[in-house]
């Protein structure tokens, strides 16, 4: 391998002309480095620039500024058919006038492979996605999940350096999607190919990825492992986009190491927490705490970050009980795990019940607003 990175985007900008005639940057100065053999996800809601970034790597779009590097080589205006990357499309884009075999063989024919070699490699590829025996079917005779597998086989048969996947599981039902997530991840580990995966589904990204780029409005909000983006979101946007959070607004009083003391009027007291991004005294910040990390007790435990509250709604959902609290007029959500199997209603929180809420400083995050 020529380069440490399979794919690199260096300060890439992609501008489009809107129908009204003004310029819009779909991708706005994005730099990212994707390592060899990595399962890398771009996560964001529609219009965040993730698909445009992927299309620039594939060669369907060319950057307005900056450049895409594949295996260390600048791609410039190289067309898709001269790049050693392959794409699995959201709509699968299977050729309807060809059989499954012809679809998968197409890429090898373009390489000028011999008939024997094509037959052998297509067979192996179909076996890999468990579609052996389906080779004479037409795409429209297959189920959605099977079509998805054909699309995967068609891209992988070319043994690309990098496989690009544009929301490939979006059209499948939930159960099949979960199965395919695990299968894709296993396949990626088995083949050792770099996967670049675009999705708007945070759970999907967290489940499969080695690293995730969380994107918004054409910019990267944070890049990190699943644990990093969930446990140490870089800013309020990431905390809000991935998982759920309680937020309190405040102003930083002092910073010491990675800890910050924040004055939070709504809480009535100072809160101590971990400063994940760069914050300094006087900054307006959001204090964030995940619902499953709030501690509820009947009596006041430790003094620090602890307040009395009233349960407004409590919903039993099986594994957890979702408790909604009123803390001095602030609405708080807390997920309590049901660790004991019992029918006793006292084990679960009742509406109107008084409880003590503790925000442990190691679970409390001080986030810059972004």
């Amino acid at each position, binding site marked *: 391998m020529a380069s440490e990175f399979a794919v690199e985007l260096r300060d890439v900008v992609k501008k489009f002309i809107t129908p009204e005639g003004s310029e819009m940057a779909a991708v706005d100065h994005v730099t990212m480095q994707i390592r060899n053999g990595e399962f890398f996800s771009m996560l964001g809601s529609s219009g965040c620039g993730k698909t445009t970034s992927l299309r620039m790597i594939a060669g*369907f779009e060319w950057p307005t500024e900056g450049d895409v590097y594949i295996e260390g080589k600048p791609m410039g205006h190289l*067309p*898709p058919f001269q790049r050693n990357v*392959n794409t699995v*499309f959201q709509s699968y*884009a299977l050729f309807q006038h060809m059989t499954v075999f012809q679809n998968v063989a197409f890429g090898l024919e*373009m390489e000028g492979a011999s008939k024997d070699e094509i037959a052998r490699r297509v067979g192996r590829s179909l076996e890999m996605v468990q579609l052996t025996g389906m080779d004479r079917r037409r795409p429209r005779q297959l189920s959605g999940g099977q079509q998805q597998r054909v699309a995967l086989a068609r891209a992988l048969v070319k043994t690309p350096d990098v496989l690009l996947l544009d929301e490939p599981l979006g059209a499948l039902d939930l159960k099949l999607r979960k199965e395919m997530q695990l299968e894709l991840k296993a396949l990626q580990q088995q083949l050792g190919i770099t996967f670049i995966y675009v999705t708007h589904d945070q759970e999907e990204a967290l489940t499969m990825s080695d690293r995730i780029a969380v994107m918004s409005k054409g910019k990267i909000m944070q890049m990190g492992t699943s644990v990093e983006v969930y446990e140490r979101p870089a800013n309020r946007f990431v905390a809000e986009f991935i998982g759920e959070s309680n937020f309190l607004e405040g102003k930083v009083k002092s910073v010491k190491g990675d800890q910050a003391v924040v004055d939070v009027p709504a809480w009535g007291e100072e809160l101590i927490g971990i400063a994940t991004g760069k914050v300094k005294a006087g900054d307006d910040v959001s204090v964030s705490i995940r619902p499953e990390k709030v501690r509820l007790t009947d009596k006041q435990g430790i003094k620090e970050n602890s307040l009395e509250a009233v349960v407004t709604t409590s919903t039993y959902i099986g594994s957890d009980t979702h408790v909604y609290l009123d803390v001095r007029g602030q609405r708080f959500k807390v997920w309590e795990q049901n660790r004991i199997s019992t029918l006793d209603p006292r084990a679960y929180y009742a509406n109107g019940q008084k409880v003590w809420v503790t925000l442990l400083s190691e679970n409390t995050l001080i986030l810059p607003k972004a």
Partner: protein
Amino acid sequence: MNPFRRSPFVLFAAMLVYVFLYLPIFVLVLYSFNASRTNVVFTGFISQTGSQVVMDGSNVVQSPCGAFHWYCELSKNKDVTNAAKNTLTIAVVATIISTIVGTMAALALQRYNFKLRPFSQLSLYIPIVIPEIVMGIGILTLFSQLFGWINNALNLEGASRLTLGLGTVIVSHIAFMIPFVTLVVQARLQGFDKAYEEAAMDLGANEWTTFQRVTFPMILPGVLSGALLAFTLSLDDFVITFFTNGPGSTTLPIYVYGLLRRIITPQVNALSTVWIALVFFTVLLLQWIQNREQK
């Protein structure tokens, strides 16, 4: 229960439509077997006795063809076979060229966003909506002016002079057929996902291979429909052909019109029947091809 109950009126209306559409054709075919030379009323089918048939009750005519007497007469008619040859030559050549150009135009209009695009799109409708006679006169004027200048400038004499004929008819047919082809192909392209072409290129196909292997096979049904529409339009075009043909380039519609001015013989009916059968089988063939594609 279905709130849209089928009222007897619907059936009645449907019958009426079919009668209106197909009764004239039925009558036309029937009259091609008429045992009457004037063909004003149907006097019964032609009956064969030995090598003779009986016309108008008493008239005995030599003919080996029996009920198909008028079809035999037709095949012996040199003017008809010439006109049929002209018509088919024009239709085939004009269809091939207009299908190629029309399909290219549809692809360009779909793929590229250029300044004159709205104008180009609009200009496609104009030949369709303006009266054919206006277009016919326009084309005639253009040709006579142009040919006059060229003949004068190059001092062309006799047979080498540019005149109206098969060539001018073909060119004018191509001109009015292109918009039809383009619009039909465009309708097909409307639902065409760009991702198919991107997938082909992603798999290593260059632009031309992508067109050959993916785009063209996928839009082929649309292209065939466009070609067939153009072909039938050319076959039965009268007005534009009337203005642009010359000696020796008479087509069937022009010939039939000429015949009708003299006498309506059952030959005209026989000719029309052959014509209908030809078009009918072409449509059937196309349907069959499209159905096979779908499987």
